[in-house]
């Protein structure tokens, strides 16, 4: 455990010096505040507190931004060590490859959590100032934070996997962007096309729920939207949300980080310095 913590401490320090902590936090705060400001305007007539609306907006934002931040932080993790030539020496130390990965994961998750708490927190504070009734939506904000952390953990693990597979930072960066595009943009487009052509047939009722759960980004969206009953009017994929039990999307969100870490470990074990 002390070796994991020591690795995490060094990684956190490096991220701090490389301005990653500042960049991640600034991005989250900026986007959250913009959403809070624009999302709070139309709520007066609907009768929903501004924070509930903001949480729904933040969910849509997080689906794009959290995986992006996680991949940006992780693509260099192994490939960077290989390129700098620091990996051979590190691997002669009495520290296992899993411990190295866990140390990096811990540091990157800490940075991500910090950025999320500050970003979402800023949006929460703003909503509360607009309408003190927002306090009732606090549980959904809390839910958004921990699910975002799990989503981030899944993509951090996937990033380490790509980093181990490509062994060159430039190659890993390319793969990471490809993965982001695939999971966050193309996957949903594909599903949409499927639903449209199928017209409510077997694909929509049987394949779609499984497909949504198989993608951590969709599972994240499903979970947060179906948990937020108060704002069912969010529409879009939220419509599908009610057809899938809450525990299933939660299970997908918990299993993905574990599976991604396992993938990363398997890939890292194959790296010969």
């Amino acid at each position, binding site marked *: 455990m*002390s*070796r994991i*913590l*020591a*690795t995490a*401490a*060094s990684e956190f*320090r*490096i991220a701090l*010096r*490389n301005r990653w902590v500042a960049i991640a936090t600034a991005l989250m705060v900026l986007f959250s505040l913009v959403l809070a400001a624009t999302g709070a305007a139309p709520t007066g007539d609907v009768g929903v507190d501004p924070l509930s609306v903001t949480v729904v907006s933040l969910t849509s934002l997080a689906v794009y931004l959290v995986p992006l931040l996680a991949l940006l932080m992780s693509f260099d993790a192994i490939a960077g060590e290989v390129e*700098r*030539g*620091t990996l*051979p*020496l590190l*691997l*002669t*130390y*009495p*520290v*296992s490859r899993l411990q190295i990965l866990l140390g990096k994961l811990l540091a990157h998750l800490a940075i991500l959590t910090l950025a999320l708490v500050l970003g979402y927190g800023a949006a929460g504070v703003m909503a509360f100032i607009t309408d003190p009734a927002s306090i009732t939506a606090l549980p959904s904000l809390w839910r958004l934070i921990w699910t975002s952390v799990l989503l981030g953990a899944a993509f951090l693990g996937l990033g380490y996997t790509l980093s181990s597979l490509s062994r060159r930072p430039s190659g890993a960066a390319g793969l990471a962007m490809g993965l982001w595009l695939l999971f966050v943009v193309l996957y949903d487009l594909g599903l949409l096309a499927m639903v449209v052509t199928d017209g409510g047939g077997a694909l929509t009722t049987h394949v779609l729920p499984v497909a949504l759960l198989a993608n951590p980004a969709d599972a994240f969206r499903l979970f947060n939207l179906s948990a937020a009953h108060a704002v069912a009017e969010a529409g879009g994929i939220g419509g599908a949300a009610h057809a899938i039990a809450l525990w299933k999307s939660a299970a997908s969100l918990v299993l993905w980080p574990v599976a991604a870490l396992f993938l990363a470990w398997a890939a890292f074990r194959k790296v*010969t*310095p």
Partner: protein
Amino acid sequence: MTSTLKISRLTKRYDSVEALREVSLTLEPGMRMALLGHNGAGKSTMMKIILGLIPFDGGEVSVCGGAPGSAASRAQVAYLPENAAFHPALTGEEQIRHYLALRGESTAQAGELLERVGLGHAARRRIGTYSKGMRQRVGLAQTLIGRPRLLVLDEPTSGLDPVSRRDFYALLDGLAAEGASILLSSHALTEVEARTDRILILSRGRLVASGTLPSLRQEAALPVTLLVTPAEGRAKALAAALPGATATADGRLRLDCPQADKLAVLARIVTALGPQMADLDVIPPSLEDIYTNFSHRDGS
């Protein structure tokens, strides 16, 4: 006394190329062994196998009684890679503290370790601002962590100035005296000459010579060189008296003779030509000569 490192008939192939062929060696506690060879002779490959960084194809390797790369052996082996590299964003002190923590040692020793390699003044500066020699010292400092039983040093003195090299070998002497075994590779043959107990010469993956410097000298059977400085105005007469000698650029005469005939030749020259000489130097074959001899024997 158990050997720190035991390698027998080690073979390693990269596709069709044989990087190491049936190499055997034993390293006892307190012994300093130098590994010599051209680039690509297999030195770094052998070191990486000993450290468990790469697999091997044949033979046996035992490091501190365990398999190379096992948790037990990693805890007792220190490594200095060729061109040691570290994360440029960390300071020397932070980097050493990290390595201390990974070895389960108190991080408070970082300052003292850096002091020992002469980096105390730069401990709080980022490694990105260090020169090559300074990075090499950070590398040396991390090999001193804990009490390693085996130190594997790949070109440890590259990038160090002569004074630092001397300090470095003094450090190694101290470690060896405490019972640590040292395996180092080097291109600087002259410095290895005086500072190691045993010399190994690798050529194209094969061990072509192994032994102490005197035993290698004997085995190589290279001629001894006699350099004769003629007395004032006697150069011509002297050259006539020594028909086998060649004149050097600075006006001296150079004579090669087999190791076994050295004393006889010396006696003859001194008694017969004594008054015509100003000076006489006897030069044994250098490690460079021996190295060249052995690494060219297999036809390379």
